[in-house]
């Protein structure tokens, strides 16, 4: 039985909107409003959603880069939401992170050696400086670069190489969980494939648990074991990857998957095109937050927010109705040969 590494309960992060000369709070941007997640040991949990759905904020809350407004984060049975000082530092080293933009996430004035040894020194995971350099050498080779690269600066590397360095840095403190926040969206497809393969290899080698955050449905499908779909700060549906992609039960998931352009001109499918835009997270619609764009919405949807409940074990859906939706993509196993 695999253990739960990280559990998130009713996480909430509201950013205040202030205005006027007194700087009074006029409203709230409800970036994360209701998120429950459970991430199991050794798995990749994919968190997918459109821009503004709050997926990145969830990742930042877990790392405590920003403080959550409410909710609980439990790491291996220990509540880490309010940990401080040395106690937090001990837990924090178990979490690595890779950010989206490899041009912004590396200090341009620090050598790669500096970038890789600094976290080890801060977290005191190594005995001496020499040991830190040895470990940096080892890591840089694991991510497909070589020792010489340690003495260079970030501007000497391409986007793909920088992202390899960012991955190496995430590994420096021997973490258990790595939060991957759009790690390939700055990269070209041929380089993206290299990074995705690297991440898969490292996961097996170090038995890592990934929280993979992305807006790219194909990448999430390829990388994840389980997937959570976010919309306006809440999880709409979460399940095993195949259920989310082949037999989704939430109308938003269904529309999202059917909207994805698939590189196969022979594929004929019924596309669900949602009308309108995502509402502002300042004014989240009453009741079900998806109802303004939902083709099946009723009056009841405006009154009561549907809870996220398990319809089958491990398949969570936040919808009042059992809609019996069709498969969003026909499954073709034969007609491709590439």
């Amino acid at each position: 039985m695999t253990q739960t590494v990280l559990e998130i309960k009713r996480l909430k992060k509201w950013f205040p909107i202030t205005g006027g000369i007194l700087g009074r709070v006029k409203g709230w941007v409800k970036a994360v409003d209701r998120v429950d997640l459970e991430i199991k040991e050794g798995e990749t949990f994919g968190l997918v959603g459109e821009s503004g759905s709050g997926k990145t904020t969830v990742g930042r809350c877990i790392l405590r880069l920003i403080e959550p407004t409410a909710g609980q984060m439990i790491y291996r049975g220990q509540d880490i939401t309010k940990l401080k000082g040395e106690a937090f530092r001990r837990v924090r080293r178990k979490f690595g992170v890779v950010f989206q933009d490899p041009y912004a996430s590396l200090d341009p004035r620090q050598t790669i050696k500096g970038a890789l040894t600094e976290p080890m020194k801060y977290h005191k995971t190594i005995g001496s400086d020499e040991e830190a350099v040895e470990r940096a050498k080892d890591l840089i080779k694991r991510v497909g670069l070589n020792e010489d690269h340690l003495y260079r600066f970030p501007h000497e590397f391409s986007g793909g190489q920088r992202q390899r360095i960012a991955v190496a840095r995430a590994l420096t403190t021997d973490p258990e969980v790595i939060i991957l926040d759009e790690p390939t969206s700055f990269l070209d497809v041929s380089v993206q494939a290299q990074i995705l393969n690297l991440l898969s290899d490292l996961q097996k080698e170090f038995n890592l648990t990934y929280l993979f955050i992305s807006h790219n449905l194909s990448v999430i499908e390829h990388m994840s074991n389980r997937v959570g779909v976010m919309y306006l700060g809440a999880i709409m549906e979460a399940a095993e990857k195949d259920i989310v992609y082949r037999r989704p039960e939430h109308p938003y998931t269904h529309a999202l998957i059917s909207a994805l352009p698939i590189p196969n001109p022979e594929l004929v499918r019924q596309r669900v095109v949602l009308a309108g835009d995502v509402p502002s997270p300042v004014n989240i619609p009453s009741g079900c937050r998806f109802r303004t764009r939902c083709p099946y919405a009723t009056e009841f949807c405006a009154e009561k927010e549907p809870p996220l409940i398990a319809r089958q074990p491990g398949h969570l859906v936040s919808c009042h109705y059992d809609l019996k939706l069709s498969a969003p993509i026909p499954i073709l196993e034969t007609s491709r040969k590439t």
Partner: protein
Amino acid sequence: MAGAAEVTDTREALLQVKDLRLNFHTYAGEVKALDGVTFVVKKGEAFGLVGESGCGKSVTALTIVGLLPENASVVDGEIMLGADNLLKTPPEEMRKIRANRIAMVFQDPTTFLNPVLTIGEQLEEVFLLNPDRLARVAAERKASEEALMEIKAEDEKTGTEREPTESTRKISKSAKKKVAKALSIDVLTEVRLPDSERTLKQYPHELSGGMRQRCMIAMALARNPDLFIADEITTALDVTIQAQILELLRELKKKLLGSTLLITHDLGVVAELCDRVAVMYAGNIVELATVKELFANPLHPYTQGLMRAIPMIDRRMERLETIPGSVPDLIYPPTGCRFHPRCPFAFERCKLEKPELIHVGKGHTVACHLFGEGKA
């Protein structure tokens, strides 16, 4: 010549790009951005240019519309739109061509909309700049008949008498504005903007990304172009909004007779919208075929690599295949075939000689030494 097989029926061709070579001057040296690009866009078709960033697909489009940055220089080649060579057209004429025959929409609509003018002012301008078309389009559109009647009424009031075509030049300013407004509402409705009358009064910052992109498309449609160039127009949008725009483009494609040149890095978008597609790599077209043929039977090692490198949700893959290395520096491009340093099948000849696009059947051409001289 490379494109000889391609350009068989010139009557069908709307746009012909022949052996286009282009360099950028930079402090680091000459960037050989385009190295002999040849293709034809036929009348009424949607033609895709696909490739990774830096492959030259956007530069090709900018060359066609004559909007290259100052440090770019065309070394060689020809771009024919009908009988006109666009590379020899003076800037003032090019302006007219951009106003009437070619319309381009870019990835980021925010940059291309004027932030201090309302959508209405920007859209109406398209009609007002060309009084002939204003009258012609107005006559074509039933919805605008009412406005035309008003012009006539006004003519009668002022007692002006003139030939129907000549008359349009002299109609009053306010009447012209009315027609332009009616036409603007029409096009905005055509791009499925709800409440188009209100949108006319709004400024770009009041609209969402998807709506702005619709306005850009509306401005392009308003010109009734022969060629519509769409450069990564869905890239900056969310999946559900992208689906709306793709759906719109598909509808418009059916309705309009003009051709579309679609530039994208997304093979999914190509598969959904295009009739024919050219794959570009490092300033060259490496393969050109109908969409169905290209996806069913990709021949160039780069095309094959690209297709295996993207995760696709309609099939299972344990592991993605990768193309080793990264895109070459085009200041010092590789000799011979520009793909040879990354190609798993490269042999001696690839380093020495640049492969030409050759016909391999069914309108499928490929630039690779693996195919050529009966080797296929």
